[in-house]
Each structure stands twice: as structure tokens, then as C-alpha cells.
């Protein structure tokens, strides 16, 4: 026992006098200094703007501001306060609603669009550019255009409904907090239009890597188009499909700009399109009176945990089974 405890210390003591080692020490230090010189800029930026804020978010969520400046330990008060806030639960419900709707529309549509584009022998370049063009627009440009389309008085979409003799809608400002509300669908439509290009092009690249022989073999065995998609296309692109599924859920759970611009920062009628990140923003920067960074941090920690549990669980559930 005693020997084992002293062993590392003894070897550490022995190390410096070793003659061969001393000769290498100075060049080694020099080499390391040089290497760290190259590394230091990025390391400082990561420390200040990434690593430290991660730690600080957790610390801040357990603190409260003290009159006259500074912070004091607050225990779980911030968490209790946000859990008691009805808006908190509504924001979570809205965010889940957005995520689900965006999955139905924004996840499946690009996949089938990619399958379609992959079958076409003409106009491929043109169609690819079309799909990706909205992704490049500044989000405010694209969303303000949708604000105009959605306008209940002079917007294009209500005009289309009128031409079709359908009842007009208030779109994003349609009241109602049902689970699948018109307001949220309007947000999802704008969001999908803006964002689907990226996923489509990634699928397209994945589809082009499927060996043609597989389709050949499936066809020889009499598989129709649907079965070829099911038994060849989907299994062959499984990894990309799962990867994008996870990334999409993680990114839609962080929805902010879509609802923020479409509702002009308000979160819709009765907060029916208010997302969790919008609520973080409201807690921290937009609440009347003193803005409270601490409740906002607590909400941030909750969102971080939810996303971490989701990603971890997803990766675990879809791991390669041997």
C-alpha cells in the first residue's frame, strides 16, 4: 500500500536528472511554445466566448442580482420562478408544436424532393439553384416578405383564398392556441421555404452515392417504385436521414428569428407562436423593468439539458447494433 502511494512521486523525482532527457528539454519547450503561439488566439476566443459562457450560464442560473451590484447565491429560486410561469409551459408547448410540424413538412418534403430531383435528367442545375436560393437570403428579407403575404388586409395569401372562395385567415395572427394552430403552421411554412434547400442538397448527394446495382437487383426481383424506395433508397441513406433528423430537431427547438420577425417580436396572439428561445430573449432583454439574466440563464440551462438528453437518447437509440 505504502509503496504504491510513493511510487509515482519517486518516479517524478527521478525523471529530471535523467541525462538523455535534459538534452531534449529545451527544444521541447521551444517547440511547445511555438505550437501554443499558433493555438493561443483560438483558445482565447473559445475561452471567452464559448467555454466560459457555458460554465457561466449554469452559475448564473443559481444566482440572483443584489441591490447595489453583484450577485448572490439563490439556490433553485430562478428555476422555481420559471416553472411557475405559465408562459414557460406555453413556450415549450409551442416549441414542440413547431418542431413536430417542421418535421412533418420540413423533414419529409426535402427527402422526396431530393428523390424526385435525382430522377430527372434535365434542368437539374436550375432546380438545385432554385431550392437553395432562399437559404441564401437574409432571413429578415425573406420573413418580411412573408409578413407582407400574410397581411390580412392587403396580403397575397388572403387574396388567393378570396379568389378560391375560401374563408380568409389572419395567418400568423390567427388567434387560437390549439395544438396545431393556423398561426404556427404559417410560421412553419415560411420557415420551411427558407430552410429546406440545405437538407435537400445533402439528401441529393447521399442519393447519388447509392450503387445502381441495388436498384437493378430490386427491379429484377419485381420491386415497384415504392418498394424500391423502401428497401433500397431509405436503408442506403439511413445514416444521413438519422443525422439530419437529429440536427433538424435540435435546430428547430431553437427557433427564434422566424416567429420573432413574423410577429414583430410579439410571439403572436396570446403568445401562440412564442418559442423557448424567444422567451429567453424576453426574460433577459425585453421584460419591463430590470431585465433578469438569471431566469433567462435558468431557462437556457433547461433548454440545454433537454436538447442534450434528446441528442444523447437519439444517438443511443439509433446506434449501430452488432
Amino acid at each position, binding site marked *: 500500500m505504502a509503496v504504491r502511494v510513493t511510487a509515482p512521486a519517486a518516479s517524478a523525482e527521478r525523471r529530471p536528472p535523467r541525462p538523455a532527457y535534459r538534452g531534449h528539454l529545451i527544444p521541447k519547450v521551444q517547440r*511547445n511554445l*511555438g*505550437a*501554443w503561439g*499558433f*493555438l493561443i*488566439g*483560438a*483558445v482565447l*476566443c*473559445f475561452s*471567452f466566448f*464559448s*467555454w*466560459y*459562457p*457555458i460554465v*457561466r*450560464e449554469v452559475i448564473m442560473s443559481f444566482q440572483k442580482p443584489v441591490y447595489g451590484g453583484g450577485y448572490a447565491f439563490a439556490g433553485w429560486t430562478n428555476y422555481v420562478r420559471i416553472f411557475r410561469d405559465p408562459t414557460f409551459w406555453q413556450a415549450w408547448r409551442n416549441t414542440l408544436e413547431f418542431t413536430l410540424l417542421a418535421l412533418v413538412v420540413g423533414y419529409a418534403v426535402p427527402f422526396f424532393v431530393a428523390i*424526385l430531383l435525382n*430522377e430527372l*435528367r434535365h*434542368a*437539374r442545375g*436550375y432546380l438545385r*439553384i432554385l431550392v*437553395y*436560393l432562399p437559404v*441564401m437570403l*437574409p*432571413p*429578415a*428579407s425573406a420573413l*418580411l*416578405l412573408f409578413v*407582407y*403575404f400574410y*397581411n390580412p388586409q*392587403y396580403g*397575397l395569401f388572403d387574396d388567393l383564398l378570396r379568389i378560391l372562395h375560401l374563408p380568409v385567415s389572419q395567418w400568423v395572427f390567427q388567434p387560437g392556441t390549439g395544438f396545431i394552430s393556423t398561426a404556427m403552421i404559417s410560421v412553419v411554412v415560411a420557415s420551411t*421555404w427558407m430552410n429546406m434547400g*440545405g437538407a435537400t*442538397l*445533402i439528401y441529393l448527394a447521399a*442519393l447519388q452515392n447509392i450503387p*445502381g*446495382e441495388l436498384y*437493378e437487383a430490386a427491379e429484377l426481383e419485381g420491386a415497384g417504385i415504392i418498394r424500391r424506395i423502401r428497401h*433500397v433508397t431509405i436503408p442506403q441513406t439511413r445514416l444521413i436521414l438519422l*443525422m439530419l433528423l437529429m440536427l433538424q430537431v435540435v435546430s428547430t*427547438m*431553437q427557433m*427564434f428569428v422566424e416567429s420573432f420577425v413574423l410577429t*414583430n417580436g410579439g410571439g403572436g396572439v396570446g403568445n401562440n407562436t412564442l418559442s423557448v*428561445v424567444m422567451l*429567453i430573449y424576453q426574460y*433577459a432583454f425585453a421584460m419591463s423593468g430590470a431585465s433578469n439574466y438569471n431566469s433567462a440563464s435558468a431557462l*437556457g440551462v433547461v433548454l440545454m439539458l433537454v*436538447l*442534450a438528453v434528446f441528442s444523447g437518447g437519439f444517438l443511443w437509440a439509433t446506434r449501430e447494433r452488432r
Partner: protein
Amino acid sequence: MAASVASTRTLISSVQLNRRRGRITYRVVLTLTIVVFTLVFIGPMYFLFTDGLKSTAESIATPPTLYPHHIYPGGYLQAFDRLDMARLMWNTVYYAFGALAFQLVFDVTAAYSLSALRPALGGVIFFLMLATLMIPATVLVVPQYVTVANLPIVHLDLIGTPEAIWLPSVANAFNIFLLKRFFDSIPRDYLDAAKVDGASGLLILWRIVLPISRPIIAVVSIFGLVAVWKDFLWPLLVEYGYSPTRETLNVGIWQAYVGTPQNLIIAASAMAAIPTIVFFLIFQRNIMAGLTAGGIRG
């Protein structure tokens, strides 16, 4: 690549397509696809560019007109003046290229150090950098904002300065990952040969590594520029509400929305979109290649 891919077998065989029925179906599907896609994706763009040419009265007329009945180019000029578009545009370009410069200098050197120089603790640093990819960016805005408002140790307030956008953009684990992976693939013999000739680390990076790495630098640069150009929440927090304006185009147009006539807002949105569209049409090959080769980006 696209040409060879088009000739290989996909879901539907070319034999099937070349049959009479197949040919007709293909033509119909192709035409439908082109028409629907053009309507869905170019349609809104059409209104983005033409609605700015309407007068204010026409832009809020019910029912909306499908094309400007009286072309009023004054809308664009008025929007340009009223929203101070020149300044917004300059701010955005300044932030975007500044961020790019910082990213290229710091991320390239860091990736080079991690890949070729391998300092002590380099592995730990690389792991910690990659770990930040697991933390969703938007949940950190509050502590990031508080940190930028009062930088620890040096006690600088960066709010309202371009550095508030430039420096955090360097902390991009994805850049480091892409660059390091590319540098790792460069044969060590090149670097060792240069070292034997007595070249310093900086010289090796400049004369050997960078010229080979042009493709990956292009990917990182393009996505770096686009990220700053498209970002909304962060510039809203750190550059909002100064006079003369320090906002980006994105935030500037949004904040002008209340109290500015509809036609001017659309004209401004169109003007903000033009540079990105031109940029995309010029670099579309790199962008699309980067999207798939560089991996997946948010």
C-alpha cells in the same frame, strides 16, 4: 461529376424511361416539377423585387396587384435613404469580412498547430473545442452577452463594437474540425522535408499548407461570410440601437418595419437580398460542394 452521375442507374431505369409511356410520363413530371418549383421558389422572389416598385398606395391596395401597375422606382431610392441602406450594407460587409479575417487567422493557425505541431495538451484542447458543438448556440446568448459586455480579466465592454461580432465568430469548432481534418490529410513528408530545409512553422504554413488547402479554405470562408450575413439574434443584441446605425442589414430592416411604408420595406428587403443572390450565383459550385463535402452545417 454531375454528368457521370446522371448516366448511372437511379431509382427508375433508363430502359423504363425510354419506353413510350415512360417518355411521356417523364416529360409530364419534368414539366410539372419545373413549373411548381419555379412558382414556389421564384414566385415569392418575384414579389420581393416587384413589390418594391409599387407606390405605397398600390402596395397596400386590396386586392393586391400581381405586378406594379404604375412603376415607381422612387420606392427603392426612398428606402435606400430612409433606412440608410448604404450604411447597413457597409456595416454588414465590414462585420462579415472582419469576422472572416479573424477566423482565417486564428482558426487556420490553431488547426495547423493541432494537426502538425501537436503541442502538449493539444488533444484536450481539440476535444474541448469539439465538445462545444454539442451545446446549441442560441442557449448561450445570455451569458455570452454578459461576457461580451464585460470581458473577464481585461474588463472591456465590446457591446456596439465590431469585435463583438468578430471575436466570438472565431470560436467555431466546426471550422477547426474541417481545417484540422484537411491538414491531417496532407502527407507528413512535405512538412518534414520543409523542416529539414530549416523552414519555420509559419513559413511551412504559408508556403506549403495553405496553397494545398485552398478548397477547404474556400468552404470555411464562404460559410463564414454567409453565417455573419444571415445572423439575426446576436447582432440584434450587440449592435442594436446606435446612431448612426451599427446594425446589420438583417436587423436594420427588421427594426425599420414599424412605421415604414410597406413598399419601402419590401424594396429594402430586396436590396438586402441582392448581394447574397449574386454571391450565391457566383459561388454556387463551391457552396453546394461545401455543403456536402464539408459535412452538415446547421
